[in-house]
């Protein structure tokens, strides 16, 4: 209905293969970018930045990372929390030990370090598949967390065992630590998220993405048409971990400002996995939807139960968990491919409106 594609024809492959070939889509994305970069900073309050917007961005990025691995390459991972921790702690070490390094590079390098760790734990994926692999990633999860709180070196031997990001600047604007203006921290997170999201989109619609999806859909056939399983999977692990690492670094530097290893425990891993599932396996835009959903839901529920209905915090928490679980089951039953698929279906409907098919 909104989609009027008559007269949109392509006279070259580069036009046909553009990242958003349909005019209306381009407008749509543009709209969102304007909102994110201009409207939001003008309107949002401190609370919004701290409780909703920045975590949303951070988790979107992490979700995107995990989605590349699970959704595109079909390799289950329960180690996301651990990898985010790697990102966070690398950022901490870099920021404290190499103060002259610009925060942007701090974050990027943290991502690269995480990528290496990811590759390391991805190696078994050549021989093991499915749930077996999930266990391998669990090993990563528990080992890494254990490592971070057992070895003082990672926290510069601070007795509390927790780490805090020093104030850092970009072009003289302070962007990290409690002293920084939330807007600045928001822009930091937003910048990384948007750029990386675009890169991810390009990756998954290109040869790399095709190789991943081939492995996902039918690894045997994939190998028989000449796709190297290990190399392909490791690429997925690397890229995925890089994204997650950057997310971890942002979690720490742009959002929480302080952290301790337990913040990145197995539950975080599961949360991110839920964001992927509910957002939609194998979808970039879905990763954002999933993150938004899971970030907003608890806030909404808490406000509802405690705020409106006046339940005890404890009951509220339990109710929350229950509803959370129920929703997940519901989603899987109704639309196993998540919000992204729903969006896609609606979009298709809009394109062929008023016809049903």
């Amino acid at each position, binding site marked *: 209905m909104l989609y009027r594609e008559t007269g949109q024809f392509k006279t070259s*492959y*580069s036009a046909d*293969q553009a*990242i958003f070939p349909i005019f209306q889509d381009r407008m749509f994305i543009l709209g969102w970018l304007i909102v994110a970069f201009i409207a939001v900073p003008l309107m949002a309050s401190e609370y919004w930045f701290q409780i909703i917007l920045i975590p949303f961005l951070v988790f979107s990025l992490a979700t995107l990372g995990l989605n590349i691995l699970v959704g595109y390459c079909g390799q289950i991972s329960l180690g996301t929390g651990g990898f985010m921790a790697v990102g966070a702690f690398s950022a901490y070490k870099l920021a404290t030990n190499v103060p002259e390094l610009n925060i942007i590079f701090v974050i990027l390098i943290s991502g690269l370090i995480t990528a290496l760790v990811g590759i390391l734990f991805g190696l078994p994926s050549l021989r093991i598949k499915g749930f077996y692999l999930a266990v391998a990633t669990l090993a990563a999860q528990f080992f890494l967390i254990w490592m971070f709180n057992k070895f003082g070196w990672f926290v510069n031997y601070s007795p509390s065992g927790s780490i805090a990001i020093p104030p850092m600047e970009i072009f003289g604007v302070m962007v990290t630590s409690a002293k920084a203006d939330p807007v600045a921290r928001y822009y930091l997170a937003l910048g990384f998220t948007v750029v990386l999201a675009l*890169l*991810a989109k*390009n*990756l998954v619609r*290109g*040869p*790399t993405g*095709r*190789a991943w*999806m*081939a492995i*996902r*859909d*039918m690894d*045997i*056939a*994939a*190998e*028989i*048409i*000449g*796709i*190297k*399983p290990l*190399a392909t999977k490791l*690429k997925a692990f690397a*890229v995925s971990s890089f994204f997650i690492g950057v997310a971890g670094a942002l979690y720490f530097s742009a959002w929480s400002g302080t952290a301790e290893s337990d913040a990145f425990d197995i539950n975080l891993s599961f949360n991110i996995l839920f964001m992927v599932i509910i957002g939609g396996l*194998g979808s970039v835009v879905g990763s954002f939807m999933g993150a938004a959903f899971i970030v907003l839901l608890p806030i909404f529920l808490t406000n509802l139960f405690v705020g409106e209905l006046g339940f005890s915090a404890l009951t509220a928490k339990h109710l929350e968990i229950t509803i959370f679980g129920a929703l997940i089951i519901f989603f899987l039953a109704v639309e196993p491919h998540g919000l992204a698929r729903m969006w896609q279906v609606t979009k298709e409907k809009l394109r062929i409106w008023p016809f049903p098919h």
Partner: protein
Amino acid sequence: MSAVENPRQISGEVLLNVEDISLSFGGVKAIRGVSFNILKGEIRAIIGPNGAGKTSMLNVINGFYHPQEGKITYKGETRSKMRSHVAAKQGIARTFQNVALFKGMSTLDNLMTGRLLKQREGILQQTVDMLLHAVYLGPAKRQEVVERKVVEEIIDFLEIEAIRKTPVGRLPYGLQKRVELGRAIAMEPELLLLDEPMAGMNLEEKGDMSRFIIDLNDQYGTTIALIEHDMGVVMDLSDRVVVLNYGEKIADGTPNEVSANQDVIDAYLGVS
């Protein structure tokens, strides 16, 4: 003026030679000491009753199964085992008995996966290429266009323009088979293994498929080895036929020779 069809020229050169191959899973012997060869440029049919070990034979040829005994000589170089993606690199492509497409992708993307083995080797290059694709600029973009051109010609060749952007999961069986053939062609193979390319097709579809196979063979000189149950098709298409039964070779020769062979007749009566 009048048409003079000239017969296809098949060089005597042997492309692939399998020597007393034996393959077994646990106790079960799937193939027992089978030997035969495939000449460059010919269409070679492998026939036999169900469970004769035909598919296993293909799996051995493209390195998916590793035979316990025997050796395979491909393009003059002998091997006992290799990984199937290596076989692919060396120019062996195949389709599968029950379609093995990537359900999550469109026809176009499925064919594009066939081009992946043309990518640059080496960790460094691969990483660089990946980054280039991520930013989708310069060489990466140009490469995409080049590959797309190749694939589009295949789409045109197989007359599947109308389903270019349809997810293959939604396609009827006949078309899926076609797309799978397309994916194999996209690999620009020297040896193409087709596992029952016409299974479950109606007359018209079979006709099309035969046409494609023939055109493929004499336009691109692709050597083809196919498993097929439809005898009519086998007789029309193939230059030579090898017959397997219970994992053993019982006949080998031109369609006519084979169809005259008593063992073959028995074997078939045996199953039907």
